[in-house]
């Protein structure tokens, strides 16, 4: 029977790919597996298993009449057809962990469950693990994890009593290019105004982001909340919002600890 496997490749460097995922990639071409993924997945495969062809899914983000939710549902159905109707062993390669804010994987898991089809998940390091290295999260008062969109545009109100990690600050600013920062200030100003409803203007916040290829260094800058929209950020930047009166270390910016030396 053919198989459908979702493989998390971690958020950044090949060194973050798990041994299980790497072993699967290295044997995939020989076993005739058919792989699908976006740019980050292709980059990882080019370094770890260059003989494996990865079919590019980028076209899903360019269809003029297809909103994102429909694109993700369409992708899930496509992968199901390939694996369970066409008899192909399918690998769906995703950045980070398959379980963190990935609507296509969510649709896929639910479809497989509804139809009684087997689905294998190979876990990957999440972006959360990576970005938390520039702050001191204690865990003493919990953690709120949302997308920036939830707060800026869905009306979600954060609790001021626990720190929050708001991800994908600029996701809707461009077509998925992770280092594009051209139109992020619109989202940032909406976010700032929502946060100012519960937090003071000088409340410290920290923008957490990545230098991108090839090192994917963890970059960060600390600023007062009122200055949040003063400069653009990359699409996949995250915002750390300490609790109003939480543990003091959670307000501090931690130095780089990626082992690459120097200031990132």
């Amino acid at each position, binding site marked *: 029977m053919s198989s459908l496997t979702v493989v998390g490749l971690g958020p950044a460097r090949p060194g973050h790919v798990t041994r299980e995922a790497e072993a699967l990639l290295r044997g995939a071409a020989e076993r005739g597996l*058919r792989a699908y993924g976006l740019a980050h997945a292709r980059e990882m495969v080019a370094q770890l298993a260059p003989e494996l062809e990865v*079919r*590019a*899914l980028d*076209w*899903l983000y360019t*269809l*003029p*009449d*297809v*909103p994102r939710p*429909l*694109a993700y549902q*369409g992708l899930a159905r*496509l992968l199901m*057809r*390939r694996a369970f*109707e*066409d008899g*192909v062993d399918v690998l769906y390669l995703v950045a980070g962990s398959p379980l963190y804010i990935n609507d296509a994987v969510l649709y896929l898991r639910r479809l497989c469950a509804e139809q009684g089809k087997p689905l294998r998940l190979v876990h990957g390091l999440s972006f959360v693990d990576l970005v938390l290295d520039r702050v001191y999260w204690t865990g003493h008062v919990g953690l709120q994890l949302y997308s920036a969109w939830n707060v800026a545009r869905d009306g979600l109100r954060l609790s001021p009593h626990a720190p929050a990690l708001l991800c994908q600050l600029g996701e809707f600013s461009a077509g998925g290019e992770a280092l594009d920062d051209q139109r992020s200030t619109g989202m940032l100003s909406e976010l700032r105004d929502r946060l100012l409803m519960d937090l003071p203007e000088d409340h410290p916040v920290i923008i957490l982001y990545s230098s991108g290829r090839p090192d994917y260094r963890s970059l960060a800058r600390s600023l007062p909340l009122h200055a949040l929209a003063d400069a653009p950020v990359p699409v996949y930047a995250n915002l750390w919002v300490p609790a109003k009166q939480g543990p003091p270390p959670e307000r501090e910016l931690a130095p780089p600890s990626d082992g690459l030396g120097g200031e990132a």
Partner: protein
Amino acid sequence: MKLLPLGPFPPRGSEPQGCVDLGVRLRDSLLTAAELRGPTRGALAAQLQAAVKGERWAEAAVLLEAVLDTWPLSALVDPARKAWARGARDATDLAVLARAASLISLARGWAPFGRGPWPTPDTETLRRLSQGASVALRRGPGDGAALVAEALGLPLSDDEALPEGLAVLSDADVLERRDALARALVAGRVRAVAWRGEGPTGAEAQLAWGELQMEAPDQEAFE
């Protein structure tokens, strides 16, 4: 006998039985070591000599580079042409063929054809390569069929000469054919897809068309 057009050039494969495939004949007769070290190098050297004597230095510089390139290209062009015809997807082969084509065009004074450096042969060459043809077929936009038909005085048929392994879709049938066609593409029984008309309308048709293009093994080469 049916005449298949020049483009897309350079074509893959060999000439289909019962047809004159102008693209295949042009590829196999011109993109060769014998052509480059014989007529092409001779013509370029003569043009270079004339440019030097006339002190047309800008022209001479281009010709000098072209003459020098005939030596390495003579060594590379036959293996590159054979690999390309077999269906290999090596960009270096394509680069070799492109440079060879540009030298041949320069030597013979032929204009480029379509996108890229591919040559438009003169009428005499077209006539020689097309012997026996009685009707010219189209293959798609920019294939040179109209130009060839006019040059040779042949009727241009509305029938399309579709490459083997190509499926043509439209808004009317893309959803109905998607599943079976995707299966055939994955299995390699169909190699590429083409769209008839302006492009898919509506979300489902766009998703289906994107899927089929992605799954087509030779889509990039076809496009």
